[in-house]
């Protein structure tokens, strides 16, 4: 077993075993420490995946479009020809690291504070199970395996929302589970259509169409894209998200917004576009139009929103709209913009949810009408909230900029009346994004302190700083050096776009 294969297995096995160990540890705090250590080891293994030979020796017509740095391909259920096929490349690696990082930060955060509703031990164990599912989704190179991992995430996340969430948690969790289950059904049917028509579930072999007929590709893309659109989410299939994000505990919101949504966009790029390129070309205008609708609707709803966490939740709809617009252009620029937009959104919105949680925990309200003057009583918290908001509105020089600006550039590059219009509308959406974030800052940080804010202590806990600092630094680092993400993604994206032609 080579180092790469070992790491691939380790990235999934460590959190899985960690979850078992956490559940088996009797003392609550010790269990949380065990979980945090497991998450840290996972992050280490995930980061090390970039080691080794990952040279990309030029695209040749015979080489497959997906060429993982490391892969492991074992028979799983030989009777059904199911294989345990994992691999990592430049498209999935940044997301794998992001997932491992956010899980570690969330586990570390629960060392300091466990939300009300249940034991911290159970919460950490569930977070680790969710991590296994998400990482598996990003690593799977077999369609059926992909589907299995995609589904593993659902129930533990349901439990996190329903167990540790806010006042209306049960309804939100039910809606989340049922709505995304609907998406899963479509995904399952889509996977069956592809596997039945192609006779294989190997994503490496399937990428590029693999001789599927046009009709099959259209049907497969429609089913798969709908499934991923629910997860991403794409307007108008987004309405599970605001409830789930608002009601989930802070760590749940961070995982939901930070990485869970990325399963949808990743699946769209890797599975839907890769497996059914002809279907993707056929549906691209619709996808693009819906993405721009998501940007505008998300921004407008945020502009009229009056609850802190709900506003941030809706902002995800708009941001993921930019990501989906990038994918819909089907150009190398657009897909790269989508990838960096994915990572940036995970970092920045993760930070925003941490901060929103901190504000709500302290002030005991998330209503914008009852929050004001945060900078008078808690200047550091207000400053960080300002930073996160500014990063999220796509300030050039911070991470959010690249994905949004280059989704617009890609739309302009695609040319034609439709795409140019979509690019213009998306750019207008960028201005609306600034409008609602500034409105948020004006309500929450400026003015005289409201009674709820007036009694806040100015300081921040050490655990909070430790959890937030990596995200702040990453938002800055990815903004200043986008090659951190795009350097590894360039070659695989080019190869993918090559088969789209």
């Amino acid at each position, binding site marked *: 077993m080579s180092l790469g294969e070992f790491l691939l297995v380790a990235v999934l096995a460590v959190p899985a075993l960690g979850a078992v160990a956490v559940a088996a540890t009797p003392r609550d705090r010790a269990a949380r420490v065990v979980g945090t250590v497991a998450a840290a080891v996972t992050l280490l293994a995930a980061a090390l995946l970039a080691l080794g030979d990952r040279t990309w020796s030029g695209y040749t017509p015979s080489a497959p479009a997906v060429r993982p740095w490391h892969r492991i391909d074992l028979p799983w259920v030989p009777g059904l020809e199911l294989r345990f096929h994992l691999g990592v490349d430049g498209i999935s690696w940044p997301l794998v690291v992001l997932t491992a990082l956010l899980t570690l930060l969330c586990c570390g955060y629960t060392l300091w504070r466990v939300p009300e509703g249940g034991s911290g031990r159970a919460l950490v164990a569930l977070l680790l199970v969710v991590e296994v599912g998400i990482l598996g989704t990003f690593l799977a190179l077999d369609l059926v395996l992909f589907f299995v991992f995609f589904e593993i995430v659902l129930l533990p996340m349901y439990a996190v929302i329903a167990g540790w969430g806010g006042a209306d948690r049960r309804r939100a969790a039910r*809606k989340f589970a*049922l*709505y995304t289950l609907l998406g899963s059904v479509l995904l399952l049917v889509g996977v069956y259509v592809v596997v039945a028509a192609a006779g294989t579930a190997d994503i490496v072999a399937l990428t590029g169409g693999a001789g599927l007929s046009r009709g099959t590709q259209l049907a497969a893309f429609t089913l798969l894209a709908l499934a991923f659109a629910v997860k991403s989410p794409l307007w*108008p299939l*987004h*309405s*599970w998200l605001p409830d789930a994000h608002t009601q989930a505990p802070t760590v749940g919101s961070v995982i939901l917004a930070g990485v869970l949504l990325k399963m949808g966009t990743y699946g769209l790029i890797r599975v839907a576009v890769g497996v059914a390129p002809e279907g993707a070309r056929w549906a691209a205008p619709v996808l693009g139009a819906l993405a721009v609708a998501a940007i505008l*609707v998300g921004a*407008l*709803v945020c*502009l*009229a*929103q009056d609850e802190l966490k709900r506003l941030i939740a809706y902002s995800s709809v708009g941001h993921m709209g930019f990501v989906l617009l990038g994918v819909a252009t089907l*150009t*190398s*620029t*657009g*897909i*790269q*913009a989508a990838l960096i937009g994915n990572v940036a959104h995970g970092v920045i919105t993760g930070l925003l949810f941490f901060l929103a949680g901190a504000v709500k925990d302290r002030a005991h309200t998330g209503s914008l009408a009852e929050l004001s003057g945060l*900078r008078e009583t808690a*200047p*550091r918290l207000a*400053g960080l909230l*300002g930073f996160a908001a*500014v990063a999220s509105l796509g*300030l*050039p*020089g911070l991470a959010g*900029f*690249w994905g949004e*600006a*280059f989704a*617009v*550039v*890609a739309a*302009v*590059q695609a040319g034609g009346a439709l795409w140019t219009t979509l*690019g*213009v509308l998306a*750019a*207008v959406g*960028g*201005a*609306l994004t*600034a*409008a609602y974030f*500034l*409105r948020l800052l*004006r309500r929450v940080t*400026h*003015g005289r302190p409201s009674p709820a804010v007036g009694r806040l202590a*100015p300081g921040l806990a050490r655990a909070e700083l430790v959890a937030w600092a990596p995200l702040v630094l990453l938002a800055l680092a990815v903004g200043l050096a*986008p*090659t951190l993400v*795009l350097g590894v993604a*360039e070659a695989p*994206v*080019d190869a993918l*776009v090559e088969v789209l032609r």
Partner: protein
Amino acid sequence: MTTTTLLGALLPVVPLVAGLVGLLLPPAPPDGGEGRARRAAIALGVAGAAGALVLAVALLVTLDGPVESSGTWVDLGGLAVTIGVRLDGAAALVAVAVAAVALAVQVYSIGYLKRGPHDDVDVDHRYPPYAAQISLFTAAMLLVVVAGDLILLLVGWEVMGICSYLLIAHDRRLPEAPAAAMKAFLVTRVGDVGFLLGIALLGVSAGSFRIADVLAHDHATGTLTAACLLLLAGVAGKSAQFPLHTWLPDAMAGPTPISALIHAATMVAAGVYAVTRLYPLFERAPAALAVLGVMAVVTLLLGALAATAQDDLKRVLAWSTVSQIGYMTGALAVGAPAAALFHLLTHAAFKALLFLAAGAVIHAVGTTLMSRMGGLRRGMPVTFWCTVVGLGALAGLPPLAGFFSKESILYAAEDALHGGGPAPVWVGWLVWLAGLAGVAITAWYATRLLLRTFLGPARSPLVQPHDPPAVMRWPVLLLAVPAALLGLAGFAGGFTDLLRPVAPATPDRPSDLLPPAPLVHLGPEVLLPLALLTLGAGLAWARWRRDPAGDPAATLGPLRPVFARAFRLDDVQHALVVRPTGAVARGVRTADEVVVDGAVTGSGRAAVGLGGGLAALHRAALPRAAAGVLAGALLIGLAAALIGAAA
């Protein structure tokens, strides 16, 4: 990388580091003691600005022709984004101006944002973030100045926007400050939608965002015109041009040194500078230049007229900035980027001087309203004479700086009347006529400002006006020197050459061999603006002689409230943009919750209802259930018989 390009690259880095380190200082003192953090913030801020000034001067000295240095930043699907600098004489001069004003502002702020004896005990100026944000602001503007790539320029451009937002909202005692800050950022951001799209068009067309590549590429005419027009939207936002000028007067809610920074060397200068940077493109798009000319003329007159009726000292200066930037964009429209840059530099000097002097007045009197000032000359002679120099330069009084730079713009416009510029002749006429009218109006309101503030009877007899402490006095005094003398540089050949935009020599286009036309012309045509200047100043003075206690603005009669509210364009903006957007947002939110989410929850409820209905059907009493079972059996039997018969 040569020494020169290294200097250029370090220019934004030095204040950036000072700013980022400054942001880590504790923002608020723990228990009232401002001591150590404040001192550290002062040291960082002043060091950052001073370092930038030294670098900028060194750059100006070492630079002997345009140089360029760049490397790949990121490559997005064949579109190269580079990171690098593009330096020429104009960049070096503007960098010197930016750094000098920033240094003046940093030093001046030490005295201005200090807890005075009259302040409340709990006043805390939050000096560390303030100084750090000025450093970031400076860094962003310097990045715009040296950037060799459009995306890099956009980074500086927008970071500047966010710094202006933070600094305008800095004064926590002013209830209107947060709204003004938000307006400043949003209005400019709306313009930036166009700016981003323009950059996207150019970058996609050229396959690279490097300015040199974009300028060298042969763009299709339609693309070029569209891109230039889109860029102008961003320029209008940043440089406060009609119709996106509304944020600038409101931005007066920021501390006065910040006004000096925004109005003099950064922010509003960025738009004009960006156009000069891309001027070869605009030259090939006369339609865009025509639009720019119309924008400039409207802005010039609008700003000047609005300045005549303001009672707030800072607002007079703010509207005068709007009007003066109109002169610069007018110069750009008639094909004279060098004249625009010349005016940009002199304006940077005299407007920084005027704002800092106004700050001294506000500091002494405790109000910004001129109706409560008057007679300050005796108490504050230094401030008075500095203001005289600044206002003289603003109005274009020879031999002060503004006279020469405005003269060069009027000369360029006159030249365009004969078809000498890249824009249509009618644009030349518009700019020339508006420029002349602007001279008279500017002289009128400058005179009014001087008379109302420093002369006549004191209208607030209780205050004891005094010149500011040394730390605020020296920046004002030093800025008076360029405000008075910088115009004479227009005669120096070397200075003129620096301002001319020269494309870097390429193999197929070695260099521009045309003899440089002089920037300043003193001929008989100078008499016309001088006469108008005398007329404007004389009218204001004559009115004041009759009634030293009254406001010369009373002569405006019924127009006064219209001018005071700047033709109510704020209301127009509110009615046409702000309120509809809010209404649409509320509508969309309702639709999203009722229709989109309603369909989801509705389908859930329908499924439950359907299930309940079916369950109820199954819970039938015995007779009906028996009948149902029998009917079902009958149906199945019938079907079997029919299918059997058919088979």
